[in-house]
Structure formats: structure tokens, C-alpha cells
């Protein structure tokens, strides 16, 4: 680590690509950076999301020669890039030398490898004297990105700052970048709870940690996937999700941010702040959300209260928040997730699920949360 071991004091970090190199298609730069971040995400509790405007924790840019930080680049070769340790302003930023020939392969300078190294600096890692380490200072293409592995020295270093990934369990899930194992939550674990649940174009998605179960009409057996397999830039451990059916959008919430996805496309201009929806600044996260297809009203659950949002006017309805127990008797806070199906609302709370009849205004069934997963 750098002298004094600077580190980020939070585990969810934002990044922004300020400009691009003409050497590579933009999408390739974006994908390489996402892949490089996943290298570190896989062995720590860190998660990352991309901003398309404004100040991010990690600002990424390409520049040649003198570029305003007293460490001018030096033309082709020698210094390829540099990055600053965690902290405010230019700290945490990553600069790539535009005078290099950036490539995706073994010729020129492989952008993914250098990005993974520099992002290690942006997270607080200094150079390693182990030649097999990603954080060794001299560029070395011996490890092709497809078979890239962090060395134990890299993992020890980053985990000395942030600890291991919460699920550094033992069940093997083949991931492209690191050998440590991650554990898929067991779908029929009786204690299973969900982070969020949402329909998507007729399917149902059940989110948990870094994974989602996908329930579709043609396959009764739920499929499990990494969230990042569909939406690489989304964080894990989500708070809430709902589908605005008429807009063909799923809105996904974590902390004070939310994203809009359309199928597998994360919409530009996101994440936005939840306060743009009309929440008071005191609200720091949403527990659960569900949108009523008929009325086009969306219900947001926070603690023991709920808000109602008008999707047509894109405005929070007046007279809210109200107490959950006043309008949903029998539903106890805190709500983990909510689903509307067959005319009922299904409230998920820990490993239990409460079927609520909005007409009778009462709980009609209590089930296990994972009953939808054929358990």
C-alpha cells in the first residue's frame, strides 16, 4: 500500500471515463475498464458503478505529455500510465499516456492489463516486487487477459485494505479473472431472503447479493446468473427494483442512486439520485418498490413508511409518506422486496413472504420467500 495506507472509506465507488483513445473503440475501453474493476470486485467487498457526468471517485482519462499534474508523460514507451491513491479530488484518478499504442491483444500495450494495474493504485495498492504480480511496475504481457489471474500478493495487498469478498466461500463459480471462489446463495436454503424482486418483460427476477434468479415462462427451473452478466456496470447487493411496465423500464436502486435498464441496456444518464424522484434528503435508501400495472402508481417502502409515485406524471403523490401498517395491515417493516402478481401484492421480509389482498386489505397467505423458486 502507499505510505500511510490510504484507502476508500466506503465500499461502493463511482468511476467516470472522461475521454477516449483513438486507438480503440469506445465500447472496448468501457468493457476493459469494467473487466478490470471486476478483477478487484471479485476479491473484496468493493462494488463500482459508472457515472456519465459529474465528479466520480475514480476519474479516468487519456493524455499525452504535460497534462496538468506535475507528472508529464514521456512519449511512447517508458511511463505508460499512472494513478493516484484513494482520496478526494484528483486522488483516485487514473491517467493513461495517449502516446502509447493501446490494444486489446499482445501487440502494443494491452489496455486491460494496464487498467487493472492502475485501478489497483486507485484503490490504494503500491507496487509489488513480485514479478508475477499485477502490481509489479514493469509491463509484462505474459498473462493474456483471457487467462488473467491476480497473484496472491495482489490479493493479500488489496484485502489488507478492504477485507475479502463477503462470499469468499468454497463453491466454485468460474469467473474469468481470479481463482478465489465465490458462493452462489442456495436457492432452497430455508433462510433465504431477497434483496429485491422485479418483473422484466414477463419474466421475474429475484436479486440476491451478486446474483439473480430468472424465472421465465418457458423454463420452470429458475436460472441463476451474476447480475454483472446482464448489467456489468450495476452494483451488487441491491436495495430495490421495479418494472414500469408501460415504459419497458426496470428501475434498480442502491443507496441514494438508481439506474434504469431496458432489457440488458443500462440507460444513459444513470445513475441518478433518488432525491430527484421527490424523496426528502433524509431518505438514504429504498427498502423495496413495486409498480401497479393498472393504476401506474409505484409504491416505495422505506422503514415503516411508504410513498406513492405517479409514473404518468413522474411525480410523488401528495399526502405521503404514510405508515405501512395503516394501509397494509399485517405487513411488518422492514420490507425487503415487493412483487405484484395475480392481483395480490407479495411482501418479502427475511425468509417469509406475505400475500396481501389489496381489496380485502389483509394478508391472505404466508409462504417461504423462495416458494417462487420451486422450493
Amino acid at each position, binding site marked *: 500500500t502507499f505510505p500511510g495506507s490510504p484507502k476508500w472509506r466506503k465500499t461502493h465507488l463511482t468511476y467516470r471515463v472522461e475521454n477516449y483513445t483513438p486507438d480503440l473503440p469506445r465500447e472496448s475501453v468501457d468493457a476493459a475498464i469494467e473487466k478490470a474493476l471486476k478483477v478487484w470486485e471479485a476479491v473484496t467487498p468493493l462494488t463500482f458503478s459508472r457515472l456519465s457526468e459529474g465528479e466520480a471517485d475514480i476519474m479516468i482519462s487519456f493524455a499525452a505529455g504535460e497534462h496538468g499534474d506535475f507528472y508529464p508523460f514521456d512519449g511512447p514507451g517508458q511511463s505508460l500510465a499512472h*494513478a493516484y*491513491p484513494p482520496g478526494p479530488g484528483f486522488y483516485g484518478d487514473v491517467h493513461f499516456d495517449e502516446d502509447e499504442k493501446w490494444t486489446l491483444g499482445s501487440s502494443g500495450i494491452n489496455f486491460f492489463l494496464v487498467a487493472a494495474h*492502475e485501478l489497483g493504485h486507485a484503490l490504494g495498492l503500491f507496487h509489488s516486487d513480485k514479478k508475477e504480480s499485477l502490481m509489479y*511496475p514493469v*509491463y509484462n504481457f505474459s498473462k493474456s487477459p483471457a487467462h488473467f489471474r491476480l497473484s496472491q500478493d495482489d490479493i493479500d495487498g488489496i484485502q489488507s485494505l478492504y477485507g475479502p469478498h463477503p462470499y469468499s466461500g468454497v463453491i466454485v463459480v468460474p469467473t474469468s479473472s481470479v481463482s478465489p471462489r465465490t458462493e452462489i446463495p442456495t436457492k432452497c436454503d430455508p433462510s433465504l431472503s431477497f434483496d429485491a424482486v422485479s418483473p422484466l418483460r414477463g419474466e421475474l427476477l429475484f436479486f440476491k447479493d451478486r446474483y439473480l434468479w430468472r424465472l421465465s415462462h418457458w423454463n420452470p427451473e429458475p436460472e441463476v446468473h451474476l447480475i454483472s452478466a446482464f448489467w456489468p456496470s450495476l452494483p451488487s447487493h441491491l436495495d430495490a427494483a421495479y418494472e414500469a411496465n408501460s415504459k419497458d423500464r426496470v428501475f434498480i436502486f442502491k443507496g441514494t442512486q438508481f439506474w434504469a435498464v431496458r432489457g440488458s441496456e443500462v440507460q444513459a444518464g444513470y445513475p441518478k439520485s433518488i432525491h430527484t424522484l421527490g424523496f426528502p434528503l433524509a431518505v438514504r435508501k429504498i427498502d423495496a418498490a413495486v409498480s401497479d400495472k393498472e393504476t401506474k402508481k409505484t409504491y416505495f417502502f422505506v422503514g415503516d413508511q411508504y410513498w406513492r409515485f405517479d409514473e404518468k406524471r413522474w411525480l410523488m403523490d401528495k399526502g405521503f409518506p404514510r405508515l405501512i401498517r395503516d394501509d397494509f395491515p399485517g405487513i411488518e417493516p422492514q420490507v425487503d422486496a415487493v412483487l405484484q402478481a395475480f392481483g395480490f401484492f407479495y411482501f418479502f421480509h427475511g425468509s417469509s413472504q406475505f400475500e396481501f389482498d389489496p381489496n380485502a386489505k389483509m394478508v391472505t397467505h404466508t409462504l417461504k420467500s423462495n416458494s417462487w423458486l420451486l422450493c
Partner: protein
Amino acid sequence: YPLQGSVRQEPPNMDFAQRYLEKYYNLDKIEKQMFKRKDSSPVVKKIQEMQKFLGLEMTGKLDSNTMDVMLKPRCGVPDVGGFT
């Protein structure tokens, strides 16, 4: 030291090596002045410090192995002391 007969043309390596050590190994002003007399112990020590970090034989000299590694592309972050 006895004056050398003729002013030797410093090999380009010397300038390059001095800049490298300044940039990545915190070669400081005093050591810099002594750099031209590359056998002086602080500079030998600095070269050995670099050789140790980069996994090279610690000869204390700018031998070809050492120069080869120094000439390779690398990260611009220093190996010692971090950015000032």
C-alpha cells in the same frame, strides 16, 4: 579522486539511469550530484535498491540486465515513496 585524462562522454545510459532513479526511486539532490561518480556508495546503494525491487542481481552497477529492465515500458507511479 585523480582527475580523469579526458572528459569522458557520459554514456546515454547515465543520464537515462539518473532520470529513472529520480523518477521512481527518489534519487535525491545529494545523491544526484554524486551520480556521475557512479561508484560512490550512496549511488551504488540506490542502484542496488532498485535492482532488489525489480528482482535483479544486486551488482550496484548499471549492467546490461539492469538497463534492459529499466528500458522496458512501466507504470509511472514511483516504486519508492509515492508521489510527492
